[in-house]
């Protein structure tokens, strides 16, 4: 569908009011009140996936409603309990929403401008592509996809349908990452030769359970979606999907998607897409989850030459559970977490670039990085030539690092990734695993 041919509610209203040109009763929510934008400036939102992160994003959506920048009109989840909780959360905020168990019904609504996708990772690409195809802008949680092919299709869909797709790696909307990026890009420690990430281990299931019937509130078939069918097991969800390669990919694809995004920003390496990757790890001794609790992954980039290391538990050089140390020719600089929730080092905050030095773009709309990141997306929707700061193409490049790290572990061999072709050089099996056939009809 060509989004330019879609008649949107605001276009329709504009046409009607111009044509009538007479006094006409229009609901107050459509008209701008003093200090509050009118409907033309408010983005109408639907939320797909409203547990965990989705519930947090719904809260942010309601905040933007309060600020007069958005309307929250629909929520969707495959778990009826979570859906009811989300509807109640909206009702408590004085907002009436329509509830959906099938996201495709939500996407059919012409009055919804944009959707927030906070489903398990194996749904991200399919729902993002479908949303773009139905004319919706998308805020999708990280990691953007579980395969390289899915990520390519997300980028293609965003560009083809000219939709703004922001990915929820909020580091680039956080002040600590901004200070660190500004200091590094302006040479505080010289040219970077190595970045070393540490992170605590991926958990393993110490109490495995047999397969059983799904709970009555869960639509198991819809939860699986594009994944191959298998019986329900209580260890798949909620939340624990993260510890399976198919649906989550472990810490490297969860938090790695945050940390790598910030690192690529600090090094101006978003376009340095070719690399080699080697990985070793120790698999879980028990249970359904298959992501390795401990893992060591090394990425090697050329021209400029630098090395990126992801280790669980790794060499902890900071104060908190995870973070990264930047090593440069003139010293080293620490950044805790992904640069949003914790703090920047004082030398990064105090660093004063020389006149004309590089100034990184960061939204600066709100102190809270989560609101800042979603606000940046809403701003991009309203600004024709402005892509959000973690546009899908940037996020896809980050996801490739996460995906290839896991793939090198699974295959137990060094992989050479050609970023231009988005292929592994000379490895048929690895290339087959860059995509996963999807179950009918849940496909890209």
């Amino acid at each position, binding site marked *: 569908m060509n989004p330019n041919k879609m008649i949107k509610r605001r276009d329709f209203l504009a046409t009607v009011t111009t044509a009538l040109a007479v006094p006409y009763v229009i609901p107050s929510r459509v008209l701008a009140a003093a200090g509050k934008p009118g409907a033309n400036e408010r983005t109408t939102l639907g939320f797909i996936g409203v547990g965990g992160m989705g519930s947090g994003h719904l809260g942010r959506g309601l905040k933007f409603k309060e600020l007069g920048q958005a309307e929250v009109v629909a929520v969707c989840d495959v778990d009826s309990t979570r859906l009811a909780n989300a509807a109640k959360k909206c009702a408590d905020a004085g907002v009436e929403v329509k509830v959906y*168990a*099938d996201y*495709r*019904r939500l*996407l*059919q609504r012409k009055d919804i401008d944009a959707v927030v996708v906070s489903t398990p990772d194996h749904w991200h690409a*399919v729902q993002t592509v*479908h949303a773009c*195809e*139905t004319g919706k802008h998308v805020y999708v949680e990280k990691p953007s996809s579980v395969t390289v092919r899915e990520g390519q299709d997300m980028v293609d869909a965003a560009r083809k349908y000219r939709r703004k797709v922001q990915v929820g790696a909020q580091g680039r909307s956080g002040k600590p990452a901004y200070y660190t990026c500004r200091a590094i890009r302006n040479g505080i420690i010289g040219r970077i030769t190595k970045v070393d990430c540490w992170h605590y281990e991926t958990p393993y299931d110490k109490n*495995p359970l*047999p397969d059983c019937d799904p709970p009555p509130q869960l*639509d198991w078939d*819809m939860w699986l979606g594009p994944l*191959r*069918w*298998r019986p329900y097991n209580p260890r798949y969800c909620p939340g624990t999907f993260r510890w399976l390669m198919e649906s989550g990919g472990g810490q490297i694809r969860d938090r790695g998607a945050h940390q790598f995004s910030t690192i690529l920003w600090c090094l101006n390496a978003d376009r340095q897409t070719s690399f080699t990757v080697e990985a*070793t790890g*120790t*698999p*879980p*001794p*028990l*249970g*359904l989850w*298959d992501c390795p*609790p*401990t893992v060591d992954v090394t990425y090697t980039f050329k021209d400029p030459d630098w090395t990126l290391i992801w280790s669980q538990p790794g060499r902890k050089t900071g104060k908190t559970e995870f973070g990264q140390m930047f090593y440069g020719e003139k010293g080293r600089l620490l950044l805790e977490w992904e640069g949003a929730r914790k703090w920047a080092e004082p030398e990064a905050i105090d660093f004063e670039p020389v006149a004309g030095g590089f100034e990184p773009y960061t939204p600066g709309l709100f102190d809270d990085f989560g609101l800042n990141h979603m606000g940046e997306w809403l701003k991009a929707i309203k600004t024709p030539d402005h892509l959000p700061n973690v546009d899908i193409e940037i996020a896809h490049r980050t996801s490739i690092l996460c995906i290839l790290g896991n793939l090198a572990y*699974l*295959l*137990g*061999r060094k992989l050479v990734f050609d970023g231009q072709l988005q292929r592994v050089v*000379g*490895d*048929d*099996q690895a290339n*087959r*695993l860059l*995509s*996963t*056939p*999807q*179950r*009918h*009809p*849940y*496909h*890209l």
Partner: protein
Amino acid sequence: MTENSKFIAINEDKNMKLEELVKGIRSDKPDVRTATWQQAGTVGASAVKPLAKLCTEENLEVGRAARRGLERIVRTVGAPGIQSGKSAVVQELLTLLSDDTPIALRRDILWLLSEIGGGESVEPITALLKHHALREDARMALERIPGEASLASLRNALGSVPEAFRLNIAQSLRARGEAVDPERYPCQKLVPKK
């Protein structure tokens, strides 16, 4: 296993014997099972059938370790330059697609074949497009196996599988870059079902 015990890493220097592999995977000690299945790749094709048998063990963790051992074999022989080992493993996996193998295990075998199977795998997998419980996994395996043989099989299947399954085949053909008549085989991805 205690909370503090560390995970056991593979001993790359050792080529494990089949009997050791089977014994280790049947162990009641999680650490032993895990250390053992990681070495299944060094045993290769001869371990495929014994591991497949262990996949159906009543002890879920033994079955899981055996399945992971099969994956390790496939990912070892799938490395560039191991053509003979790969062919032998593919042949062993193909024999496991027969009716005397449990359906859940045959699903796993189809996905393993999707990683390393070639033209030799197409006909046996195509035969499963007629099997109601296995046809969706068979379709997805054919979609992933590169080459003209798998593509031709999907093209032929479009006109021969039961009507209710033709839209699934059309999905695979589109994923392979084929033009499929949208009037006869409309894409269903945006059609709400629930």
